[in-house]
């Protein structure tokens, strides 16, 4: 599965794509099957919003405790917050989806940024 993420221009907040808009919680993000062309389409739409976000890109997901979690550790930290301040960032609100992210493991690629090489 894949999700689309970016940082919001005005404050840098990590955001995820859902049905044409950007939302803050990973748990609410829109997910696509790995081969769904709609993901690429959404990425194009996201990139076309340079006054809303910076640097939109797709990330790969794995299953963790019945939830989907980003494959890469970096993306899990983005979706949660820093591990040295557990009350900072998105993780502060807690709940099952956050805990599943915190327990997720099994990274398969360094960044989880799809098409990283092509993008740059």
């Amino acid at each position, binding site marked *: 599965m894949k999700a689309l993420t970016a*940082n919001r*221009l*005005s*404050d*840098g*907040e*990590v955001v995820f794509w859902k049905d044409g808009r950007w939302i803050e919680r990973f748990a609410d993000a829109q997910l696509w099957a790995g081969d769904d062309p709609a993901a690429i389409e959404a990425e194009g739409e996201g990139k076309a919003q*340079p*006054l809303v976000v*910076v*640097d939109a890109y797709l990330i790969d997901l794995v299953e963790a405790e019945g939830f989907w979690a980003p*494959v*890469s*550790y*970096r993306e899990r*930290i*983005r979706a949660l*917050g*820093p*591990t*040295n*301040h557990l009350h*900072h*960032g998105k993780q502060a609100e807690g709940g099952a989806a956050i805990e599943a992210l915190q327990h997720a493991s099994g*990274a*398969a*690629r*360094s*960044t*989880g940024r799809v098409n990283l090489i092509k993008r740059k």
Partner: protein
Amino acid sequence: MYQYDTLDKEMLADRSAEFRGQVARRLSGELTEDQFKPLRLMNGLYLQLHAYMLRVAIPYGSLNPAQLRKLAWIGRTYDKGYGHFTTRTNLQFHWIKLADTPDILDHLASVDMHAIQTSGNCIRNTTTDPYAGATAEEVDDPRVWAEAIRQWSTFHPEFSFLPRKFKIAITAAPKDRTAARVHDIGLVLKRARDGALGFEVIVGGGMGRTPYVGPTIKEFLPVNRLLSYLEAILRVYNRHGRRDNIYKARIKILVAALGKDEFAKQVEAEWAKIDRDAGEGGADLPDTELARIRGAFATATFETLPAVSEAFETAKASTPAFARFVRNNVKPHKKPGYGIVEISLKGIGDTPGDATSEQMETVADLAERYGQNDIRVTHEQNLVLPHVRLDDIPSVWAGLAEAGIATANINLVSDIIACPGLDYCALANARAIPIAQHIAEKFRDPDRAEKVGELKIKISGCINACGHHHVGHIGILGVDKKGEEFYQLTLGGSGAEDASLGSILGPALPYDRVAGAVDTLVDVYLREREDGERFLDTFRRTGVAPFKEAVYADAH
């Protein structure tokens, strides 16, 4: 301390107004992200993992209480109530909103602070000895030259688009607390037999992907010729430094490629021409300006005190925790009856270099009350009150203890340098902070930590080496192995006057084995050490073999 005059203040006001306009143009769409990014970087504003990060310059690591209070206030108002002191002696806020930054820059300017040249391929903040003006070891006050360089390098029209970033360190004491030999330029202030002051000029040290201990290219540069000589070095670098490969663009690569003698020859030739170009006015600062700057640093006033303070001795005898603090955190001052107090930002389990707004305010209060309004930041991410009467140190210690920053571990195993790493940084491959926390936990027992003695652990979350891992007695580098955090250990590095680069211990270790491995390394040292040896000395004598064997024993 140097006080900004109208000119310095107007420079900051103009800068702040310029950036306000640039942010407005970005938010309105007039500037694209590609156009805006270099502009925000020149103002220290990065986009990190969770938010924008603003890196505030603390020129040569020197702060007054009003400035530190303002940083505390900004942390509370615009961030999450804290700030992070860096190895460049700057302060980073990690949770900043783009739209707030013009206001933040205005607030900084109100106390003569800014974020100028804290990023970008320009001359960055010059660092110096945090004990400057307080230690008897120094031949003269290095801050005078650091301030001269601050002004010369600020908005330098020729050197704002160098091949890569450029960092200068100045030390004036034989004991180097600035890591001068691993800087683009390291300046060591010396006094000749005839009393004249001059710099030993070291060029082309550095860390990152290709670390070097820099060679000396000039043994004795008369101090008043400093700026023209720097101009010559920078000009040779600007013209000939590589621009085709970001990893080969630092000056160390140019110096290594040319060889130090050829590089020095080119600098000397350019320097001679600069003199001719300048003609009568000269290419250096006039003596009047040097005298003005020097005067600004000669303001500390010292009472005539007995060398021994009864209050200090009594407190040491009656309070073991205070005695421990004195053993580790109080250093000798040039004046009898005074001490230099180091404030550790490395509490066990804390984030190295972080200070809460309340802690910053406590330090500001103590500096005002007991420390001649003078606060320093060290490149090891601690703070210093350079001028405290021994009589007052018990009160300072009590104040620090109340704020949770009286940890008595300066230069000990838990006084760890760590970059923000993957918890914050967009460049990182692995986390650095939790590794530091786990190691510190292993040495929570202060008796054991003191028994181990001086041991400098330095952790970087990527090869850029912001955590100075190459020059750690134990260096730890985070690497990414197929999406998992791994850590490569190096031993035997030093950033001090005996500078050396660490050698790799063996294969990288997974996240949860690093703290245990450090524990093992320390055990080997305690077993092998001879009288008076630091960890570094033992390692240099025995070599890597016993350490390697112990850490990888269970892999056999």
